[in-house]
């Protein structure tokens, strides 16, 4: 089943007299359990594509369906709630809440979902153990390394039990060892929990681990390569 589906997706910006077609008619299907990297040079439109898939931006025309729900028509408030229930985000700069501990950061998403306290506690602990941070539950982001913070971000993204996780340049600020650890964790979650991951990245180490690589250029898909592993 396609978790993400776009049809004739277009996003046009007006910059003065200039019309920029950041995404120009993309048709795309991403199935459940995929480990996909969207790659392309700067300005190619991959970030805009991710924003549209993540419901952070609205298309000029065309459709975006997430788990068969058309999200391009949702109001701002409905979209916020939809993101909360269906989409996990991992950001390049981690973007954890600095005043909360690692466990509280993970719990926070579930709190927004109004999950009960016991479930929140249990799942946050479970997820942080899964990303190798079982002994860092009470540490605040400032007390963790970059790699550890990004692993908390992954645990947070998974906390809401999303349909898929969108990760934008998740390894851009990490060293080789942290990158390898993070990718191992994501690959394991993908394999064991069948979690769908979609990356936007320049990082060859991520591209090498992806099972599908979609190359975007000038707002269009230039190539779509699936690899057997």
């Amino acid at each position, binding site marked *: 089943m396609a978790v993400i589906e776009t049809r004739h997706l277009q996003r046009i910006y007006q910059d003065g007299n200039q019309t920029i077609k950041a995404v120009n008619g993309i048709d795309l299907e991403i199935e459940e359990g995929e480990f996909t990297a969207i790659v392309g040079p700067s300005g190619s439109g991959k*970030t805009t594509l*991710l*924003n549209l898939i*993540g419901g*952070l*931006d609205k298309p000029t025309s065309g459709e975006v369906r997430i788990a068969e729900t058309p999200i391009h028509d949702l109001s*701002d*408030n409905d979209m*916020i*709630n939809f*993101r*909360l*229930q269906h989409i996990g*985000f991992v*950001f*390049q*700069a981690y*973007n954890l*809440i*600095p*005043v*909360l501990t690692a466990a*509280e950061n993970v719990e*926070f*998403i579930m*709190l*927004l*979902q109004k999950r009960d306290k016991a479930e929140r506690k249990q799942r946050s602990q479970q997820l942080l153990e899964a990303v190798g941070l079982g002994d860092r539950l009470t540490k605040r982001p400032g007390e963790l390394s970059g790699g550890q913070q990004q692993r908390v971000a992954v645990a*947070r993204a998974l906390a*809401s039990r999303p349909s898929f996780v*969108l990760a*934008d*340049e998740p390894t851009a600020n990490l060293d080789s060892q942290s990158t390898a650890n993070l990718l191992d964790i994501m690959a394991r979650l993908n394999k064991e929990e069948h979690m769908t991951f979609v990356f*936007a990245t320049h990082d060859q180490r991520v591209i090498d681990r992806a099972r599908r690589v979609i190359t975007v250029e000038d707002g269009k898909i230039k190539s779509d390569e699936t690899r057997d592993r």
Partner: protein
Amino acid sequence: MTTLLKIAWRNIWRNQLRSLVVIFSIMLGIWAGIFINGFSYGLNRQRTKEAIQTSLSHIQVHDTAWNREPNIQNQLPQPEKLLAFLETRPEVRALSARILVNGIVATANGNGGVQISGINPENEAHLTGLDARLAQGDYLGEKKNKILIGRALGEKLKARVGSKVVITFTDKNGLIISGAFKVAGIYTASSTQAEELRVYIRKADFQQLIGHPVHEHEIALLLHKPVEVLAFRDKLQARFPYYEVQSWQQLAPELSYADEIMESILYIIIGIIMLALSFGIVNTMLMAVLERRKELGMLMAVGMSKRKVFSMILLETLILSLCGGPLGILLGFITITYTGSKGIDLSVVAGGLQSFGVGSVIYPYIDTVFYFSTGILVIVMALLSALYPAQRALKLNPVEAIRTI
């Protein structure tokens, strides 16, 4: 809500110095507002109190023609009945029946227009504490032809204790009557004007000087409970319709208006202070929002509703204000309570204060209800100050705030 509160609380302490500066400035602003108001209110209250204590009393009774023509013939008809009634009333704390006449007091060094009060010294002392306000000399006693003059008048006429003065006035037939008196004592009053304008002699001396019995022109009384003044005045007026019975508010409306005006001014002052503080709070919270663009964008991206983001900023502002506000109120309360009982000695500007009608020690005072209304104003100010920064937070576009997902 608890988690939102926890996040808001911790967010405040992310920049400790900035938050402490805001809390301190709120505290200081509220304290200054309360203190200034307490001082002004205390000053005004003291002026009223001293005017009542030393000259107005709570209620005065005159002949109905007195206010139009305050002259010797407008005496109280049958004052014995009224005095007998008043002496039986439990509400009355003290009273004094006075003979009043306008005249001139002269010494070898000069003269001045005065109101001559013929009094029963014991009653007057009980009513106005005149005996306790003597700066020099003795109070009126058994000795004949003694006079009490105010300090300012003494200085003007270069009269001392023991000096001879001559008082002159006209009787109801227009005859000029003069009498020589010795200064027994020099009294002080709350205002220079009062010290210059009134002299006191014994009622018996007055009667002897004029040569025939004269009824009193004025009966002044103090009640045990100041709140009963208006009701008692009405009761008295109804019982004795042929007199003019006036409360101190009617006798000196400027004092009672000053109370009302002061109350409005107090709120205006505190309002201005709050307005100034609110600009500081708006500025601080706006900085906090703009500094956290990325974080707030992320929160909206991952699914935190706009209502919750708004509430979080609102809570942060409220907490900041509610840390500083109650501290300021508490500090204000302590300051007012302390200075209200010990007084603030302003002897250096005693002259100015005396011309305003108050002594040199000011006792700040504020109604308890003012503390509560200030507390409510702090909350209202905090909520209003939070609106703009919170609204700015809502306008953040998650995509722009975090640049990319």
